[in-house]
């Protein structure tokens, strides 16, 4: 949890309610395994044999769920790798199966019981358990559990190849990804195990009339219930590059000053949103409009999960208002396009840029230059000749810094291009500004004749445009992200 972005703690998500419907869509662990491994002959899925797995719940957390890792391992035919899982196998002395309480209750079972979920303040273990179980299933859906299993299997197969380490760089990448994936899955499974063990404890306490133990376990469930809310949100940002910083670019649509003003308002909205989030904001490039606003601008948003959130903003934003630039006070509709580019950190492979492939130009240079001219304008444009990708920076106070910033933008653009190429099907958030079709509207901001901001993808709406334009975007972002994840997993 130490990596939890601060936003989770203060977010106002509204669409992650736990309707019983969504619980019905969950899959049992077993069904996940079988779907991930169509040819079962290859795998020895242990036969269910309910065993009592509690009794020493107070033990170390790392022990919880260890059996599950082992189970997963076995299901994937990986138990023959003592080096990788040696530590875990110590805890898996006996074959374990889908986690269940002593009387056979599973997370899936809890959900299908449809226990009423009451307020947190109600001390009812069934209510807590049902809420936690639903969270677990939501988290799995958001993490794209099925895909994770397929991926894990694929990586495990690769790790078992004898010639893997012939290419140490590739091998490192595979084993890192494998480790990350295992870590994420293990965390969820441990959480699941912990829930069931607490339920066992409560039942045990009731049998023994041990009021202290019962209230202790009830408290533990409440803690888990709160924690699971945070995990639900965290699961929204599990994408490969979600934790990166990013560039946000805004470009004005057709329509002259009115749309340039709108583009400036949109950019300002992001600056304020990022500042509220505690992110660092730097203007990298800004091309002002002749009378007002901006033609286009790029800002750098620095901080954990900046890309994960901001990617929800990609697309065209539409404004309807009485234009302050129209002397006849007519209603105008303007557009601004938003693109978001992740800034890949050290751990990612970057596109190699050849110095000789670059053309560096002084931007808006005129006259004799040198000693003849005293100007604080030192913008440079860098052109990557093979791809034609360009980057400009003009807001730094020295040419050297402008060049460095422009290079960073260029690097991210080329990385993005490469990711898009690799992904082949161009996911929306990897589109660049020029690729965003002006028809791709994602949100409408209406200031006249009524006042409303409505997201066209999620139908999430707010009746106070001012607060949105001042950067209060979390509702939009989180509802979009949860929609996206839930849709993604639902479709086969």
């Amino acid at each position, binding site marked *: 949890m130490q990596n939890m972005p601060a936003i989770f703690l203060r977010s106002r998500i509204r669409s992650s309610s736990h309707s019983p419907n969504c619980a019905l869509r969950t899959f049992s662990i077993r069904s996940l395994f079988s779907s991930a491994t169509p040819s079962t002959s290859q795998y020895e899925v242990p036969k269910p044999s309910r065993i009592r797995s509690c009794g020493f719940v107070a033990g170390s957390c790392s022990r919880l769920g260890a059996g599950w890792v082992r189970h997963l391992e076995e299901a994937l035919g990986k138990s023959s790798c003592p080096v990788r899982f040696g530590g875990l196998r110590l805890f898996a002395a006996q074959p374990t199966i889908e986690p269940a309480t002593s009387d056979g209750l599973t997370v899936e079972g809890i959900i299908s019981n449809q226990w009423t979920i009451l307020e947190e303040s109600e001390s009812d273990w069934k209510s807590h358990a049902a809420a936690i179980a639903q969270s677990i299933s939501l988290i799995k859906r958001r993490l794209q559990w099925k895909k994770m299993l397929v991926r894990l299997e694929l990586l495990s197969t690769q790790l078992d190849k004898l010639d893997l380490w012939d290419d140490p760089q590739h091998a490192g990448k595979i084993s890192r990804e494998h480790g990350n994936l295992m870590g994420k899955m293990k965390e969820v499974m441990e959480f699941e195990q912990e829930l069931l063990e607490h339920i066992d404890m409560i039942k045990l306490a009731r049998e023994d009339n041990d009021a202290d133990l019962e209230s202790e376990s009830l408290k533990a469930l409440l803690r888990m219930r709160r924690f699971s809310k945070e995990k639900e949100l965290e699961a929204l940002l599990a994408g490969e590059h979600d934790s990166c910083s990013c560039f946000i670019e805004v470009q004005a649509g057709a329509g002259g000053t009115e749309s340039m003003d709108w583009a400036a308002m949109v950019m*300002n909205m992001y600056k304020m949103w990022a*500042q509220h989030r505690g992110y660092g904001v730097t203007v990298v490039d800004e091309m*002002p409009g002749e009378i007002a606003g901006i033609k286009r601008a790029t800002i750098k948003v620095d901080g954990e999960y900046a890309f994960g959130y901001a990617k929800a903003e990609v697309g065209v934003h539409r404004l309807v208002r009485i234009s302050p630039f129209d002397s006849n006070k007519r209603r105008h509709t303007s557009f601004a396009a938003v693109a978001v580019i992740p800034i890949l950190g050290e751990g990612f492979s970057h596109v190699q840029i050849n110095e000789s492939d670059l053309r*560096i*130009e*002084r931007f808006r*240079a*005129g*006259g*004799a*230059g*040198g*000693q*003849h*001219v*005293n*100007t*604080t*304008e*030192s913008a*440079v444009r860098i052109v990557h000749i093979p791809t034609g990708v360009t980057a400009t920076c003009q*807001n*730094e*106070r*020295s*040419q*050297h*810094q402008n060049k460095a910033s422009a290079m960073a933008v260029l690097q991210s653009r080329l990385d993005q291009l490469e990711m898009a190429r690799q992904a082949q099907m161009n996911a929306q958030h990897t589109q660049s500004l020029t690729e965003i079709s002006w028809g791709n509207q994602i949100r409408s901001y209406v200031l006249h004749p009524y006042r409303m901001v409505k997201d066209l993808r999620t139908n999430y709406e707010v009746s106070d445009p001012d607060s949105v334009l*001042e950067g209060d975007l979390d509702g939009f972002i989180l509802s979009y992200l949860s929609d996206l994840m839930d849709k993604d997993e639902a479709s086969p």
Partner: protein
Amino acid sequence: MKPSLRPSFTRPWPCIASNFSTFFFQLPTPLTHARNITQIRHRHIHSSPSPPPPPQLASSPPPLLPLFLRPPEYTTTVSDLLEWHSWAKSLAASIGSSFEDSDNGPDSTLLCRELNWLMEDVLDGSDPSLMHKAVARDDPDTIISLKADVQELYSLWKQRIDERRPFQYIVGCQHWRDLILCVREGVLIPRPETEIIVELVGDVISKDEGLREGLWADLGTGSGAIAIGIAKILGNYGRVIATDLNPVAVQVASFNVERYSLQDKIEVREGSWWEPLKGVEGKVAGLVSNPPYIPSDDISGLQAEVGRHEPRLALDGGAEGMDDLLHLCNGAASMLKPGGFFAFETNGEKQCKFLVDYMQNQLPGSFCNVNTVSDFAGILRFVTGFRNR
């Protein structure tokens, strides 16, 4: 009224008090334009090549300090500062492209950007966010601390617009490469183009350890920009002598050298061209210079910021603009050690080509690999080469 971060254009222009701070009149008089430049340049200055006396930082009056280094000893309300800002912005906007049209000076967009930088320099560390908060809370009486009095800000910005005083002299510094160099009247403001000289040196020393560990000289160092840039890329190796004829430049360069704690690596010497290098003839690994190269006849037509405010001593290169460049070329062969590198900035293609031709035909056998290098605007700007081994 809803507060807005965008300054409104409707605020009345506040009346500027007539008591402009006396601040600027405390500056030492720079070498004046009227003097006979050639005479100054070649007059013999009897300064020993020993290290210069330490700059009198402590006893210097505050004017030497650029804005950003001054203590935040003034306070004002957010509303007063915003009032100044919107006044300054209107003034900048009123310029439009008139400066640009008359002498390729700054347009309002650039002036507005400078205004933001002025704000950046005058506000104390955390105060920009404090100001945003005050604006957001609609609390115009919030007190913030500043590094200059608001009245002074009015007079500074008026100087910027009315007198075309260079922005870098207004804030007292120039951002150059990754450095912030203090500058003041009497010292040439280092240009973005000149940053490339440091890149060229970087390329050379990455290929030749001997040059990296050698002695470098920056002749006519001005603010010390090139010397400091080179000293930083030399890392733990080599050392640099920076020279200037102008005592103000020597003082400013020394200040900058000390600010980057490079006083053990860079020696600032006062004197004309080769004079301060007596004793190191034939031992110099690298020689760089951005000498005056503007033809005398062009001086009167220069952009106001340059022609009216920057030192003619650093700009005027004689009738063809080549006096000092030729002087440097003629002396470079005897000053450089065999294999030593030189890079000189020039006025452009014409001077570059002339110098290449001159070195090949008039100084045959002295240099090899003589080359020209363009700046980022595509203008042939530098002549580089090596002393024959």
